[in-house]
């Protein structure tokens, strides 16, 4: 099977959906001639023209507000929001408008809006361009939250997001655009709310996604080789809706849970997953305190060494695996 990057996989998803449905279009800051800040929409202006590949002014609130208006009047916009940090500017449009409209109109209006955005560190983008803010959106009923890691998942999930009649926060990671992986030529979709067991194991359940999934898999491989610990690595793929069943089943088997995320630990999705486990029958199978491997509770430093220190890495994940196995 051919190997492509996350960036190419995302573009393929956009092209396939734009070809399939003339109501699908892209709008955002510098997405036309410039092709988007990480190049996902490069070349699309030539292919589809200005009507469907639209540059917007530097006003995130106007961008999301007009995309939302298009969505409720029959279009299927993909709004690219350059940095997830900038959602703060558009928060009223996302939280009070996009997330609420369908509910407040008694289901008479569909909101087929996709907000593609990217977050995370690793590139020296400093404190206002490196945050991982998925938990903000998880907290708001009415929004779906998707965080892919591999090219295969990125493509299948974006296509599903575009076809969804509800607003979807599609959160990419800036360092993950270059991740490579196998993607079939044939069309496929990946359903929301279905976690993917990336590696099976019997001793520890490790939940990881996005940029940290490959690091989790690397740590799992090392620990299996060095200590014989069989780690089950699960990518939830979508945080809302969330596949509780797969993780509960896994923890009931292993009795040990680690959640890895780039966002700061305090109030991160790790806390939510841990709570779901405590609320479930899997509680009775826990044989060790759970471990959260997460970003330090500091603004992301600009200095590369400090930035690296603030982000979880393979060593941190290995330590957590050992700790949960009492090693």
């Amino acid at each position, binding site marked *: 099977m051919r190997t492509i990057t996350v960036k190419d996989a995302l573009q393929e998803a956009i092209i396939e959906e734009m070809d399939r449905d003339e109501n699908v279009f892209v709008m955002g800051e510098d997405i036309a001639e410039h092709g988007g800040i990480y190049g996902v929409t490069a070349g699309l202006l030539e292919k589809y023209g200005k009507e469907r590949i639209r540059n917007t002014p530097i006003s995130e609130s106007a961008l999301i507000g007009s995309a939302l208006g298009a969505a409720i009047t029959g279009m299927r916009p993909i709004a690219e929001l350059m940095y997830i940090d900038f959602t703060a500017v558009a928060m009223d449009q996302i939280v009070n408008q996009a997330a609420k409209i369908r509910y407040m109109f008694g289901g008479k209006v569909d909101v087929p809006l996709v907000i593609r955005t990217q977050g995370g560190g690793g590139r020296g983008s400093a404190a206002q361009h490196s945050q991982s803010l998925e938990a903000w959106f998880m907290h708001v009923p009415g929004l779906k939250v998707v965080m892919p890691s591999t090219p295969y998942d990125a493509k299948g999930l974006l296509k599903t997001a575009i076809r969804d009649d509800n607003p979807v926060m599609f959160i990419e990671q800036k360092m993950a655009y270059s991740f490579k992986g196998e993607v079939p030529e044939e069309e496929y979709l990946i359903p929301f709310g279905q976690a993917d067991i990336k590696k099976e194991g019997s001793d520890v359940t490790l939940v990881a996604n996005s940029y940290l999934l490959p690091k989790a898999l690397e740590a799992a491989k090392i620990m299996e080789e060095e200590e014989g610990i069989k780690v089950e690595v699960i990518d939830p793929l979508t945080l809302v809706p969330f596949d509780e069943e797969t993780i509960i089943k896994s923890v009931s088997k292993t009795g040990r849970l680690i959640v890895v995320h780039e966002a700061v630990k305090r109030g991160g999705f790790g806390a939510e997953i841990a709570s779901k486990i405590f609320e479930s029958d899997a509680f009775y199978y826990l044989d060790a305190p759970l471990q959260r491997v997460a970003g330090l509770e500091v603004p992301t430093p600009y200095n590369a060494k400090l930035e690296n220190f603030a982000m979880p890495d393979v060593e941190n994940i290995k330590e957590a695996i050992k700790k949960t196995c*009492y090693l």
Partner: protein
Amino acid sequence: MAYEVKMPKFGETMTEGTILNWIVEEGDQIEKEDPLFEIETDKASLEVEAEEAGILAKILVKENESAAIGDVVAVIAEEGEDISSLDFDSESSKESSTEVSPEKAEKEDEKTEKVIRTEGEKIKASPAAKRLAAEKDLDLSEISPAEGRDAILEADVSNYIKNKMPQATPVAEKKAAARGIDISSLEGTGAGGRVQSSDLDSYNAQDSEADQEIPFTGLRKIISKRMTQSFQEVPQVTTTVKVDMKEIKELREEIKQISEEHISYTDILVLVVSRMLRKYPMINAHISQDSMIVKSNINIGIAVDVPDGLVVPVIKNAARKGLEELAKERKILVGKAREGKLNNDDLSGGTFTITNLGGFETEIFTPIINQPEAAILGVGQISDEVVPVDGEVKIRPMLWLSMAYDHRAVDGAPAAEFLQKIKKSLENPISLLLS
């Protein structure tokens, strides 16, 4: 490499075990998991299985003898291994075991050392450990975390279950697995609540709906092996005669007047058969594929049915013993058989076997030869029949005798003649006085 069979530890309070009986004999070929011996602990009797295959080279602790936990009770050698170099001296093996045991005991102590908790202190245990302990109805305060940890984990509870509360004997485990029964659902009657083989048997009795598979172990295994071998190897023929027992019946009544010993028909048959075997030495023989050994002693085996099978204790030199002595010996042997106390001596050396099914109203049957003997006599019930005697219709106590013989060594005519002579002797007992 030779492998030492040690006295196992079943349950916490056990310090020594008594060997009830050896299921195997020295020189026997042993498969892994074959039952070796039955031991009696302070609480129960259990079967001990072989951990390795081989030849049972030497039994060091005899039946009814006791041994401390960990003492070597037997040695299993590899096939063809020269075991003469092995030191079976019980003194030295005892010495070495006492050398090891203090250390062992210390280790044991370490393991069982309990965490000291102040009163009212909560026990630190994982949810998984608590769940398992609750499922097994265990008190967490009895369980200690492994070294280096202060919280009880699921593994500590399962180790406790495995070490401190052995769930089932190996035989019981095998039986349960074969029948798909969950051991933990059974109430164990063995030491420390251990499920033993008999618990599974009684479980099956309750659950009459379920099919049962009962593996052959111990005596049943021996019977199975010996019967199959005899039936497959020996061309055996059964010949029958009908005997008028009027004279014997009258004689027995007369004996009752003069002897305090209760004489049974079997005793009389032992007497008659043993006398007759003297005249037919070819029938008092041990037979193999290529030759036969005519035995000088006449030792009559008597088949006795016991709760778990069939045993054949032997009356030695029967031809030289009178009725009272034969009866006395028979009673002792049958008593020992019923109590499971027969020793190897009681069971070996037979040259001819008598088996009596008369008590079950059987008249004629085809017994299987007890190898390597040449013949076996099956005795039916004595029942009144209408028979012509000297042209008149009479009612007589009649008995069928069925004798199976090994046709490799004994032909039809001499076998029938032997049986005919027995018939004549029984019908005319005075003739016994003549020879």
